[in-house]
């Protein structure tokens, strides 16, 4: 019953996800033809009776992030193509190089190129295929809005919008992939007590609003290799 790391069977994690309806197509195909895995799935007895200790639990606090739908992100025609890859890019928590400063929010941009993840230094160009992920220390603010450059000049389109826990660094649960379109990439991060529109975000960036919101724009030069060149 115990798979080894080199087993040709999906892991128990993948089988559990399959049982919950979020396994991969490969797993679905494998399980269809594998008695061993079907037996493993069948060994998970459904919970019929909910015990008293569980029924006594108090109401949950709301989730930390309201995950935006993939569909919504796909509709945003911006220089960076958004897609859900909560698993494709992660930050090595044990090696967080951040040294904090007192007072005020902070934004970090992680760039994953192949197997390598680095914090963007503010100047290095990104390349098509790079994955970008934001992490913020929101200070006293409780909401984050992220915008990307729209096709319309000087306009922004919303990429992400969710509550954030104040005074605690948190990563945005999405990564964006840099496309091959020419031109710089631009991300506008706005923190505040609530969501803002793209126009309001641009106004906060340009003029401020007395500290009610905080805005930071990241402009990333893009290095597009010539045809046939390896990025």
């Amino acid at each position, binding site marked *: 019953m*115990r*798979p*080894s*790391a080199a*087993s040709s*069977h*999906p*892991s*128990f*994690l*993948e089988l*559990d*996800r399959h*049982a*919950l*309806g*979020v396994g991969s197509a490969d797993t679905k195909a494998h399980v269809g033809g594998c008695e061993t895995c079907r037996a493993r799935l069948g*060994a*998970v*007895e*459904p*919970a019929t009776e*909910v015990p008293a*200790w*569980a*029924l006594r*639990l*108090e*109401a*949950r*606090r*709301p*989730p*930390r*992030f*309201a*995950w935006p739908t993939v569909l919504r992100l796909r509709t945003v025609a911006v220089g960076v193509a958004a897609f859900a890859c*909560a*698993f494709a890019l*992660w*930050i*090595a*928590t*044990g090696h967080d190089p951040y040294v904090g400063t007192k007072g005020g929010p902070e934004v970090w941009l992680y760039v994953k190129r192949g*197997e390598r*993840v680095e914090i963007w230094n503010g100047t290095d160009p990104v390349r098509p295929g790079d994955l970008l992920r934001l992490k913020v220390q929101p200070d006293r603010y409780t909401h984050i809005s992220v915008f990307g450059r729209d096709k319309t000049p000087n306009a922004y389109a919303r990429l992400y919008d969710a509550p954030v826990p104040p005074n605690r660094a948190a990563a945005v*649960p999405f990564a964006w992939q840099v496309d091959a379109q020419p031109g710089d990439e631009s991300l506008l991060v706005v923190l505040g007590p609530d969501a803002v529109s793209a126009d309001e975000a641009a106004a906060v960036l340009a003029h401020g609003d007395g500290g009610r919101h905080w805005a930071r724009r990241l402009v990333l030069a893009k290095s597009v290799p010539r045809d046939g060149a390896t990025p």
Partner: protein
Amino acid sequence: MGSPTEDQVKEAYRRYFPIIVRKSGRMLRDASEAQDLAQETFLRLWRSRLDLKEAAATTAWLYKTCTRLALDRLRSPVRPAEGTAELGEAIASPDASAEDRSHHRAMLDEMLRRFPPEEVEAAILSRVDGLNHQEIGEVLGISERTVRRLLARIDARLAGWRARREVLA
């Protein structure tokens, strides 16, 4: 129909508790210990601020939390000895069958006492739950390269442990 909270509890329990029980059972062979561990893990899940509709993220969180809680229990000085030998065997030599139980229990004790916890966590996820490097990285929030390094290190430590034991024998 119960209250909204009760309905949410029931849904979460039916969805995730069987998975937690199985995961607990793979690490702690004592059924009542495994049931206690599953209950503790579910309570942590309920108190977390995870979006339980996100099954992939929730299962990754469950694997991490359940593994760590199991190791906490195994490190406890009052833990039962029964059922721990299998976990040591699974981590150290998943294909071995003839070695004695006391040897594997001693090996697990050594791992829990002296090995870095992240190495033991990675080894459990790999050798007990069958996760590949990418999945372990996702669960523990580390890169695949770090996963490979952790597993290589624990293998080297175990090889050293076996060599010392053979010398002593």
